[in-house]
């Protein structure tokens, strides 16, 4: 005994960590998961079976109604009722109204303009998902700043003055520039302006001068766009004819795009050290947050014209959009402020100690972190806003919800409400689910970047 103690004293014991063993097989894999989560005890097994039965009954009745017992061809609602009564859906009404549900009362022969407008948007933002594209920020900003001009001309049409032609051309230039720069970046690894500068400016010239040539080529693109745009003749379609999913997407799209930057500015303003700015921002946020959206919509719809000078008339759709934007901005401001609140003081101090000024610290250090924390809430707000646009039906705009209601007011389809509502439910679900999946995706991506 004493011998062994002596040897350990002169020669230290060597610490040998135990090797890791595999987890017990009953806790991993599909079977393990099911055993742990669904059938871990008798009562748990019973609950699983009961739950599965309830899901089955519900799904079966919905599918029976919507698909298996449904009527697909009929002249009017009477025919549907005669065929299956109320046990199956009557889809012909929805099919007949399909174009109206999607595009409102937009002239049938002009609907391609709406499709083209949304196609332009998809083309504009698609490069943001190309991994090798470098100027993503510029593309994003150009989409927010320039796309609206292009789209509003597609959707609205009508006469163009010089000013309007210039704006629409700027929009078209933006779209062309996006794809030119995507092409040069994928092909040569430099942006369009730099590539053109290198081609046009002689190689002996300085970088500054080459850039000058590059910008000149962008002006060339603009001139081509002006020529193209002035050739276009699109007939005027009043916003009164806008409706359906199209109108819903226009209102919510503008609301969402506007709410984020303005919410950021309001949140920063509310935390400002300058009392006047702080008071204005706080007042704005509290005012718009404490009034229901319907009230704001009514106010803007009926009272705003009273305050405007005689002869100035603001389009009803514009009034609704402004109301939605201001409401959304106030809510977004509080979400962003929540995110800012969560950033430790040390981050501000470190940024200041490194010599970064207020705006640099905010845009480079604080905001990226605050926005990242708040992604679920921000997207939640977007989803809420998307659904809240249904309220514009109350002030007489024919958005998706109001259009669905009109189906049942059609004399041939009188009383047909459930089917169109079921249909638009699917549409709303599709868009909201898309947004929430995208947010989860984004969170994972950012999380993967920051940890492990």
């Amino acid at each position, binding site marked *: 005994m004493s011998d062994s103690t002596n040897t350990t004293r002169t020669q230290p014991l060597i610490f040998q960590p135990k090797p890791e063993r595999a987890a017990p097989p009953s806790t991993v894999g599909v079977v393990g998961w099911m055993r742990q989560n669904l059938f871990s005890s008798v009562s748990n097994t019973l609950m699983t079976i009961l739950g599965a039965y309830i899901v089955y009954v519900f799904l079966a009745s919905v599918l029976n109604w919507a698909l298996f017992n449904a009527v697909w061809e009929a002249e009017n609602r009477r025919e549907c009722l005669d065929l299956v009564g109320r046990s199956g859906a009557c889809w012909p009404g929805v099919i007949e109204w399909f174009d109206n549900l999607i595009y409102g009362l937009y002239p049938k022969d002009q609907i391609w303009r709406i499709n083209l407008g949304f196609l332009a948007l998809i083309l504009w933002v698609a490069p943001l998902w190309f991994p090798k594209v470098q100027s993503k920020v510029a593309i994003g900003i150009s989409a927010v700043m320039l796309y609206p001009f292009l789209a509003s001309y597609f959707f609205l049409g009508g006469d163009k003055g010089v000013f309007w032609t210039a704006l629409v051309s700027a929009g078209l230039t933006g779209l062309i520039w996006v794809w030119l720069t995507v092409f040069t970046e994928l092909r040569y690894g430099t942006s369009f302006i730099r590539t053109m500068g290198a081609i046009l400016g002689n190689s002996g010239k300085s970088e500054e001068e080459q850039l000058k040539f590059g910008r000149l080529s962008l002006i060339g693109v603009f001139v081509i766009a002006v020529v193209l745009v002035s050739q276009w003749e699109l007939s005027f379609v009043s916003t009164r004819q806008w409706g359906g999913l199209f109108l819903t997407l226009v209102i919510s799209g503008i609301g969402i795009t506007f709410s984020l930057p303005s919410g950021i500015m309001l949140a920063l303003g509310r935390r400002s050290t300058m009392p006047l700015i702080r008071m204005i921002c706080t007042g704005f946020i509290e005012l718009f947050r404490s009034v229901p959206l319907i009230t704001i919509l009514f106010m803007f719809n009926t009272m705003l014209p009273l305050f405007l000078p005689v002869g100035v008339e603001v389009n009803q759709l514009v009034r609704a959009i402004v109301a939605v934007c201001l409401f959304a901005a106030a809510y977004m401001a509080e979400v962003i402020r929540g995110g800012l609140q969560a950033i*430790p003081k*040390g*981050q501000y*101090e*470190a*940024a*200041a*100690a*490194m*010599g*970064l*000024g207020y705006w*640099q610290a905010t845009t*480079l*250090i604080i905001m*990226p*972190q605050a926005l*990242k924390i708040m992604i679920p809430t921000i997207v939640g707000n977007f989803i809420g806003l998307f659904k809240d646009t249904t309220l514009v039906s109350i002030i007489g705009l024919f958005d998706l919800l109001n259009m669905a209601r009109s189906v049942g007011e059609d004399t041939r389809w009188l009383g047909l409400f459930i089917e169109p509502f079921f249909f638009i439910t699917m549409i709303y679900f599709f868009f909201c689910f898309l947004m929430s999946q995208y947010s989860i995706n984004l969170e994972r991506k950012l999380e993967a*970047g*920051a*940890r*492990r």
Partner: protein
Amino acid sequence: MSTDTIEKTAKRSAQSGQPVIELVGMSKWYGNFQVLKDIDLTVYEGERIVVCGPSGSGKSTMIRCINQLEVHQEGDVIIHGKAYGKDEKQNDLIRRDIGMVFQSFNLFPHLSVLENCTMAQIWVKETPKAEAEAVAMHFLERVRIPEQAHKFPLQLSGGQQQRVAIARALCMNPKIMLFDEPTSALDPEMINEVLEAMIELAESGMTMIVVTHEMNFARKVADRVIFMDQGEIVEQAPPHAFFDNPQYDRTQLFLSQILHH
């Protein structure tokens, strides 16, 4: 020994002897509570100063006034002969010579280690990206973690994070480095790697003010140790005099508590 003679010896021991930081009658209040009471302190170029004292004694506040993370209300803070004033642009220029390392590291968690080091170079000094990265790698090598450059701060251990923080501050080419309890948030096993980086920095001749309770570090590196209590500088002396022969009862009590627990 009077303060005058101490500063004279300090001046002799420092490398070139120009005053770089002068605190003159500096006072600060939080509401009605006075945190700093008429602080007078002169730091010479190349001098290494360790500040210690009980919590709440105002030591952190004092060094944070040196780069104006906290704004003092009375007296002057003069860096390289220029006092902080109302002109924010001027203040930013003065502050640019001062690097700071915090107790809680305060790395930017959404940026990689390399980006943490290049961010301020690119945006404040407008250094081209490639050059900024070269500078960053140079200092990451000096604190011995170049291989972590592309990781994110939260993937590193505390000691590694604090060394990145040191490298990040050095990237701005500061003339003065402030350390606010740099090892207090670290696991015991990691304290030494950070202290070693600081010792190396001290040997390179950097002017340093370090708030710390690492008394061995103070003994080994400091030119002067300052003891603060209740918003005042109670006593300052070269380390051997400070530890072996403290003048004030308050200092003796403090030392007995932290050295023999």
